[in-house]
């Protein structure tokens, strides 16, 4: 068993970065995730020689990621909503140039400068692609401090497997809260260099270059087809989710990240009252667990989707269930966190009451 610690989500994420043998972190301070840069500045370089750099902006940070990833290194950045918006251009370039990297969005309330309290308003930006062009991020949604650790390691594995950007979509509450975590052992820094990386032309060999410019439409289409083939493979092999109490479920509560944790409590209270509620928590938001929702839909009376936004993931739930069951949504916005009792109340009023 690995080392057990009580850690804040943001610090656990940072510790995982160091232990995963990450070569570099570039970032810019923003609440509620400034602990990441602060923790790494204290801890990382002395321990593994990892490069830590406070960039002058998120625009700069994501482009530093581009450059470092292009050298075949393990690199990561983090930010929160307004900063992630600034990174969208860079992400599009990174996806097109097929560079592996991990980034985390510690989602806060928006739009605009918004609030520093937790929210899930960035689902669409993360899942539907916030930058230009036909690309996807592989999106992992942790719901605990433990998953903040696990998904850094998993994120690097997936980024390198698919040569593309992986996003950890979390929020201010998971970033700030402390839970017990089991840390994996320190991994060595990577020494192998992928052949596509720019590390200096070797004698007698062709040069390598990293680009996202494919001026001939025929070539550009080929690049697109290659990207789409990767996304198809992800849909087939990388879908991850958690389910609870599906066996006897007449109703399903669903949500991701913090929303899912709150739903679990609402489910527990509901079960005590005798409602047969089950739970689906997508772990990968892209690829989305379409088949799971499709297969469960005809078996249940309704699905209640809960998010800390105006209803974003619910669109994917509706698409996946294709009218085979009733889908309801409950959400709070702007940094307000729904309480378990309030979710159950909505369920009783809209679904139980409405079914009569």
């Amino acid at each position: 068993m690995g080392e057990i610690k009580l850690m804040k989500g943001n610090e656990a994420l940072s510790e995982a970065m160091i232990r995963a043998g990450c070569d570099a972190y570039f970032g810019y301070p923003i609440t509620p995730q400034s602990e990441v840069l602060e923790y790494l500045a204290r801890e990382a370089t002395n321990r593994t020689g990892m490069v830590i750099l406070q960039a002058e902006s998120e625009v700069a940070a994501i482009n530093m990621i581009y450059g470092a990833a292009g050298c075949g290194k393990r690199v990561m950045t983090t930010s929160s909503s307004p900063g992630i918006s600034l990174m969208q251009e860079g992400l599009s370039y990174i996806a097109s140039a097929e560079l592996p990297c991990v980034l985390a969005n510690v989602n806060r309330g928006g739009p605009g400068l918004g609030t520093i309290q937790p929210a899930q308003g960035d689902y669409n930006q993360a899942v539907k692609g916030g930058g230009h062009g036909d690309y996807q991020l592989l999106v992992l949604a942790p719901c605990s401090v433990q998953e903040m650790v696990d998904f850094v390691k998993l994120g690097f594995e997936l980024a390198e497997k698919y040569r593309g950007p992986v996003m950890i979509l979390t929020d201010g509450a998971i970033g700030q809260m402390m839970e017990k975590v089991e840390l994996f052992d320190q991994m060595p820094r990577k020494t192998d260099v992928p052949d596509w990386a720019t590390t200096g032309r070797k004698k007698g060999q062709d040069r390598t270059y990293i680009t996202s410019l494919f001026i001939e439409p025929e070539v550009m289409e080929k690049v697109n087809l290659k990207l789409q083939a990767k996304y198809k493979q992800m849909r087939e092999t990388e879908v991850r989710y958690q389910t609870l109490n599906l066996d006897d479920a007449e109703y399903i509560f669903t949500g991701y990240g913090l929303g899912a944790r709150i739903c679990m409590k609402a489910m527990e209270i509901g079960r005590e009252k005798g409602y047969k509620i089950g739970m689906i928590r997508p772990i990968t938001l892209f690829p989305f667990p379409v088949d799971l929702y499709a297969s469960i839909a005809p078996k249940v009376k309704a699905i209640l989707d809960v998010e800390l936004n105006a209803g974003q993931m619910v669109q994917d739930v509706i698409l996946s269930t294709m009218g085979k069951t009733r889908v309801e949504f409950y959400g709070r916005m702007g940094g307000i966190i729904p309480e378990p009792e309030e979710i159950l109340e909505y369920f009783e009023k809209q679904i139980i009451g409405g079914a009569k």
Partner: protein
Amino acid sequence: MSGAPVEHGYTHEQICIPENLIYQRPGTLLEQEFHYCPGCGHSTAHKIFMEVVEEMGLEGEVIGVAPVGCSVFAYHYLNVDMQQAAHGRACAVATGIKRMLPDKIVFTYQGDGDLAAIGTAETIHAANRGENFLAIFINNGIYGMTSGQMAPTTLPGMVTTTSPFGRDTKTQGHPLKIGELLALLPGVAYVTRQAVDIPKNIRKAKKALQKALEYQKKGLGFCLVEIVSNCPSNWKMTPLESNKFVEEKMIPFYPLGDIKVPQEEKK
């Protein structure tokens, strides 16, 4: 308190009469308590700039741009028209305003992170275009709002939450003297560095702000008034200690005075 006689025998009403008035909140500051920490230079900078605006009778002419930083809520205090910009983009927003309303007096009010890190490009290019507005630059050597990370202006060796072993210039760069840098650009009319730690410096800073607005009225181009300031909270000092730090550490590194004055002033 009101009406109750105090020891010297005068009542509140007897004391508070126009003849006795020696100091007053300028009408250009709203009756609103500052949220700034005790001893913070932002409060002084707000006050003297608003005094200048009032004394020059510009209340109705001025449009300001608030940054993202501790002064993000400047528009809650300054009783003039204001826009709130995204982090670092104040000079671009101000460019938009001034190009639409060239006869108005436009200013930005920005911290070091806002003006000299994330907004460096916007700052340099607005200056280089000679945009005819004033940038008030509060240099406290730290990111106040986000609780004490390193700023582009953090002194070498200075401890912040992201330079926990002291700023190492080999890996974290040197403090950016953006004023000296901007002074090289032909579009820039006036660059000066002031401070608000002691009354003498406050008076000089106020004079500089007034000059900058006069130059803007004359259409001379981009003006930067840098104000070397403090951040007692994140420097982890008392207000007095922080002002001592300004005097002993900040000002020797960032010497006060004019860095560039308009051609016509030199005559």
